[in-house]
C-alpha cells in the first residue's frame, strides 16, 4: 500500500535536511575558530544529496527516497591574520581563520528548515488521510 511509502519518503527527506542543518550549525559554530597552522583550519562541510530508488512492497512501485551520499569538505584557503601576541600564533606571528561564508550558511539554514517543514506537512497530511480512510464507512 503506497500510503505507507510516503512516510519512508518524507522521513528520508527530513533526516537529510536535518543533517544539512547539523552541518550548517557546525560551519557557523566554527566560523571564528582560530588555528596556528594553516593546514589545521576548519573547512566548511556540506552534504551531497542523492535520490535512491527504494524497493517498496510487492504490490507497488519503487519509491524515490533521499540519501546523503557524502559530506563534502570545502577546499578553501585559510585567511591569515597578523597577531603576534596571540597564544596560537606561529613563528611569523600569524594565526589562521577558516574562510566560511556565514551569510550563505544562514541562507542554507533557512532553505533546509523550509524543506524540513514541507516534509512534515506531507507526513501529517498523509497521516490524516490514512486515519480518515480507516474510518471509512463508520459514522
Amino acid at each position, binding site marked *: *500500500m*503506497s*500510503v505507507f*511509502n*510516503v512516510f519512508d*519518503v*518524507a522521513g*528520508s*527527506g527530513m533526516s*537529510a*535536511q536535518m543533517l*544539512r542543518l547539523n552541518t550548517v550549525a557546525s560551519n557557523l559554530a566554527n566560523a571564528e575558530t582560530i588555528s596556528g597552522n594553516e593546514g589545521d583550519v576548519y573547512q566548511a562541510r556540506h552534504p*551531497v*544529496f*542523492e*535520490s535512491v530508488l527504494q524497493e517498496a512492497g*510487492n*504490490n*507497488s*512501485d519503487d*519509491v*524515490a*527516497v*533521499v540519501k546523503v551520499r557524502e559530506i563534502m569538505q570545502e577546499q578553501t584557503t585559510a585567511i591569515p591574520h597578523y597577531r603576534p601576541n596571540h597564544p596560537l600564533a606561529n613563528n611569523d606571528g600569524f594565526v589562521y581563520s577558516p574562510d566560511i561564508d556565514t551569510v550563505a550558511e544562514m541562507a542554507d539554514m533557512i*532553505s*533546509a528548515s*523550509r*524543506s524540513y517543514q*514541507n*516534509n512534515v*506537512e*506531507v507526513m501529517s*497530511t*498523509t497521516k490524516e*488521510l490514512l486515519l*480518515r*480512510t480507516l474510518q*471509512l*464507512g463508520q*459514522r
Partner: protein
Amino acid sequence: MQYHLQEEILMPVSFDKVFGVHDDALLLFERRNQLLSENIANADTPGYKARDINFDQVLQNAQNSNSQSVSGAQLKTTHQGHINVQQQPYTGDIQYRQVEQSSADGNTVDTQKEKAAFAENAVRYQTTLSFLTRKISGLKTAFRGE
C-alpha cells in the same frame, strides 16, 4: 421454480457498481500522493526530475476503455495462460514534469507547485472518501430496511 425464486432473493449487490469510479479514484490519488511526496522530499537533490500523473489522461483513458477499471490503458488477459499485469496501476501514466525555470544542478522540482498539487490531491482524496462514506451509509440504510 423454487430455485428461480431463491436466485432472485439472493441477488447480490455489486460493490463495483455501488462504488462506481470512486474506489479506483482513491487508488489513483493515493499513488499521486506518493509521487508528489517524493518530489517534495527530493526538492534539494541534484539531478532529480519531478514526476506526476497526468490526471486528465487517466480520465480520458478511463472513458475510452470499456473496462470498469479507471486505469485505462492496460493489457487484457484473453487466455487463461496470460499473465495478469494489473499489479501496478497507473504506472504508464506517470510523466516527468515540464520545467519552467531550469536550475543549475538539474533538479526540476518547483516546491511551490508541488505543494499546491499535493494539497489539491489531498482534497480530491477526501472528496472521494466522503463519496464512499455516503455510498456505504446508503447501503447500510438499505440493509437495515428501516
